[in-house]
């Protein structure tokens, strides 16, 4: 042991005299400097500060950090702002490409005066008073010869002809000109956008009252009360119209699998598959109430009788049968897929039903100016004011498109990010805690403890990561309720991921423990436990932090891979990996690129940011690395 000179009072005084002597000489030649303590003169900073400074000099690291903060904010703030309804799906809206322009109607249409508007799943078609057809929104299907044409590509004949009626089905459009010629374009997989030959002869001889487009089928109602339905009608048999109705129909309300028919005697009949839609109340069938108008949502019908009374039946979901208090008489009615709209005599709009796409958040303009007409179909609603302006509300679109169940990918990616980032983080924390325990005990105690723990580490290291993770996940998932499967994934990734880090920590401790400060601490009689915690741990902390960062990126990728194969986070809970789970078929890769590209890019972006941060940290903490 060296003698501690500072302790000797004589020596201290001597050095004091010597120092003042030197400083006196120095002052003779050099300008006097303020006295600084050794620490100040060297401007020593704490290691954390050095690391921070080095890190800030690293451009890519900063870029990664900013990127990662963006991803974090997107996922965590986003999931707070945009809550998810895990049970919600709307298969009608399946596989729609990204677009946020569903309600962006062309100003030219308003200028020319709106005659009618009809909406499909992701687009709307409008007819102006001048007879021009306008289409806006997002292409709802992929384009394939003989299967579908673009809804935006209005046929030349339609542009030439004087169109008097337009209607939108879910993914196709029909238009009728003043000479009784019918045109169709868009999805045509059931020939719903084509005119069948036997309809053509009827069109030539009879006056058309209304054309109707619905989900995968189309219909024409003639002025003489005859209805003709074609398209996808094999399952619901909508093409078979009861003989007693044919020739008496004055109005049709069409839904996906049902139609409500208003007959000329004021009674209502229904067709289509057997469900609540078809349970028409007695008084509407026997003629005791005389119906003048009707509208139908997905599985509910609203009918208005000549006394101004409303009748409703069908499915009760979204409170669609419970019409609010109506202050004045009903002038007109319309129905979206899950909503009902009433236009009152005083120009007010009453609107109720589901709120999945913020339909119920009505724009204030709607109530301020009197409304002349309302157009509600699917999830888009338009109100034509008496001054000719248009107000739109409802589904604005899907920023990242929809998946095979019609769920909004934007929301799912936000919430999936929250899950993926959390699973990754917690699994890394678990594995680092285990690694610290193993690495530190092993490295510090050595001997048989080291030997035992390292053999165990060898065992865990020898089992191949992905296969055993998949196996464990498959085994445990049978015994764990769906709800807890997320935690299970965290634990599995955690308990399989620690050996590498543990070895690293052990090696570092073996290095540190030979250093003099540990010897000094031991000589002073510091307890073993304290030596580990207070003296060695701070020295390996840098290493652990870098390791955590790089491991976190790896953990994100592993979770994504596991979920992609179906052994990770279980749907309907979204994670970046399991959003991609259904994207393995080449049809999805080819036609629905947004379903794999966008979530995939999010994973890449997150992992890349974390890796950049990790690399920068490593260089910041190891000054020698900068020289390389």
């Amino acid at each position, binding site marked *: 042991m060296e003698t501690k000179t500072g302790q000797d009072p004589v020596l201290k005084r001597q050095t004091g005299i010597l120092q003042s002597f030197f400083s006196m000489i120095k002052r003779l030649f050099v300008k006097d400097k303020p006295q600084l303590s050794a620490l100040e003169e060297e401007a020593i900073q704490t290691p954390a500060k050095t690391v921070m400074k080095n890190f800030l000099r690293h451009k890519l690291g900063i870029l990664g950090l900013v990127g990662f903060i963006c991803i974090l904010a997107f996922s965590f703030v986003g999931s707070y702002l945009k809550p998810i309804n895990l049970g919600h799906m709307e298969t009608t809206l399946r596989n729609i490409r990204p677009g946020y322009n569903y309600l962006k109607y062309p100003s030219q249409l308003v200028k020319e005066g709106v005659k009618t508007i009809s909406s499909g799943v992701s687009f709307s078609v409008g007819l102006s008073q001048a007879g021009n057809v306008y289409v806006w929104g997002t292409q709802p299907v992929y384009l394939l010869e003989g299967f579908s044409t673009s809804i935006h590509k209005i046929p030349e004949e339609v542009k030439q002809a004087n169109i008097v009626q337009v209607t939108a089905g879910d993914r196709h459009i029909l238009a009728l000109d003043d000479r009784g010629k019918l045109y169709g374009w868009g999805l045509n997989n059931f020939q719903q956008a084509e005119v069948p030959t036997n309809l053509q002869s009827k069109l030539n001889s009879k006056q058309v009252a209304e054309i109707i487009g619905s989900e995968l089928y189309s219909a024409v109602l003639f002025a003489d009360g005859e209805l003709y339905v074609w398209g996808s009608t094999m399952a619901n048999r909508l093409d078979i119209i009861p003989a007693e109705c044919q020739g008496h129909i004055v109005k049709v309300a069409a839904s996906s699998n049902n139609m409500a028919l208003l007959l000329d005697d004021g009674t209502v009949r229904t067709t289509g598959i057997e469900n609540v839609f078809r349970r028409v109340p007695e008084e509407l069938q026997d003629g005791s109430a005389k119906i003048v108008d009707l509208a139908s949502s997905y599985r509910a019908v609203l009918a208005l009788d000549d006394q101004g009374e409303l009748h409703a039946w069908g499915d009760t979901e979204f409170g669609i049968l419970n019409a609010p208090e109506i202050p004045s008489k009903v002038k007109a009615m319309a129905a979206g897929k899950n909503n009902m709209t009433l236009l009152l005599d005083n120009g007010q709009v009453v609107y109720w039903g589901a709120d999945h796409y913020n339909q119920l958040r009505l724009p204030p303009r709607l109530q301020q100016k009197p409304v002349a007409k309302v157009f509600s179909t699917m999830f888009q609603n338009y109100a034509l004011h008496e001054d000719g302006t248009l107000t739109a509300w409802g589904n604005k679109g899907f920023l990242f498109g929809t998946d095979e169940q019609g769920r909004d990918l934007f929301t799912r990616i936000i919430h999936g990010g929250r899950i993926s980032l959390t699973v990754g983080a917690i699994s890394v924390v678990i594995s680092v805690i285990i690694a610290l325990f193993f690495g530190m005990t092993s490295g510090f105690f050595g001997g048989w403890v080291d030997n035992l723990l390292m*053999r*165990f580490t*060898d*065992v865990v*290291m*020898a*089992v*191949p990561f*992905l*296969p*055993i993770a*998949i*196996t*464990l996940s*498959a*085994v445990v998932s*049978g*015994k764990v309720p769906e709800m807890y499967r997320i935690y299970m994934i965290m634990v599995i990734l955690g308990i399989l991921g620690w050996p590498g880090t543990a070895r690293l920590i052990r090696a570092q401790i073996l290095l540190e423990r030979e250093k003099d400060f540990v010897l000094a601490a031991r000589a002073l009689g510091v307890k073993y436990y304290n030596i580990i915690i207070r003296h060695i741990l701070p020295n390996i902390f840098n290493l652990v932090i870098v390791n955590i960062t790089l491991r976190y*990126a790896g953990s994100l*990728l592993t979770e*994504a*891979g596991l979920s*992609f*194969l*179906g*052994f990770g986070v279980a749907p309907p809970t979204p994670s970046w*990996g399991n959003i*991609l789970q259904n*994207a*393995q078929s*080449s049809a999805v*890769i*080819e036609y629905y*690129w947004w379903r*794999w*590209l966008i979530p*995939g890019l999010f*994973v*890449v972006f997150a*992992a*890349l940011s*974390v*890796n*950049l941060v990790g*690399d920068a940290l490593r260089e910041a903490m190891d000054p020698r690395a900068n020289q*390389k």
Partner: protein
Amino acid sequence: MLRYIIKRILSLIPVVFLITVMLFTLLKIMPGDPVRMMLNPGLKAEHYKAAYDAMTIKLGLDKSYPEQYVRWIGNTFQGELGWSTLHNRPVKDAIKEPLKNTIILNIFVIILELAITLPVGIKCAVKRGTRYDNFWQVFSLITYSMPSFFIALSLIFILAIRLRWLPPGGMPLTIHGRNFAYYLSWLKYMALPIITLTIISLAGTIRYVRNAMIDALTQDYIRTARSKGLSEKVVIYSHAFRNALIPVSTIIIGAIFSLFYGAAITETVFAWNGIGHVLVKGLSNRDFMLVISMNLFFAMLSIIANFVADITYGLVDPRIKLE
């Protein structure tokens, strides 16, 4: 040296024991009744009981767990890996074909990997800080951050669907006999998985080779060699590279053993009938005997690979005294 090898082998015994115990436990806690899976479900109730008991005894499931373990280990090391319920034949036969497919795939991947990483890694180290080096650094960072399925899906989208150069996945048909067209179709079907796996393997290895080479280039003997007036080519290939080969030998050993590893995700995406795909299919169909056998196979493989790498390291690097 021999003493070290023997010591190393002895230290492997507890590791192997622990792994087998772990896998055996896993096998025991797996859901599903192995006896019922072996029986014909069409049996009548009264026969079923007798058949069930007979099968239980035949499989040795009436014995205690330690006895079952010993029996299982004995069978496994004799090559009797059990019965695959998914393929309805012994596991040994069920994985023969996929193992062959995986090895064929991996031969190409490893050749490509080494052929690209060694020259690129060396050049990056020699020209470090230049645009060439930066390009590969960024490339490896990005591919390192990509999930393998994302690389696979992107390649399918570009090469198979947009350009229509290659099939998006599947196995070549064998009906046409073994002529030139047959081998060509093999290459076509293998191309996308090979490219994917090569890209994945490049990221880490290029960095590794580069760092090993940089370490070698900063040694004093390089300065000595340069000051002797040797040409840069001799300095790099004769002095630096031969020393850099010592750490690189580890990845070469690893690459050789990775021949047998099936890439679960990549093979699944490309529907390549390899060992990784069989594992995923086995798990989805709860064929646990197959899964456990394959896990054991993979574990043993990685133990042997580590062992061989350690020994080679000692042989190649004269500075290391293996005692």
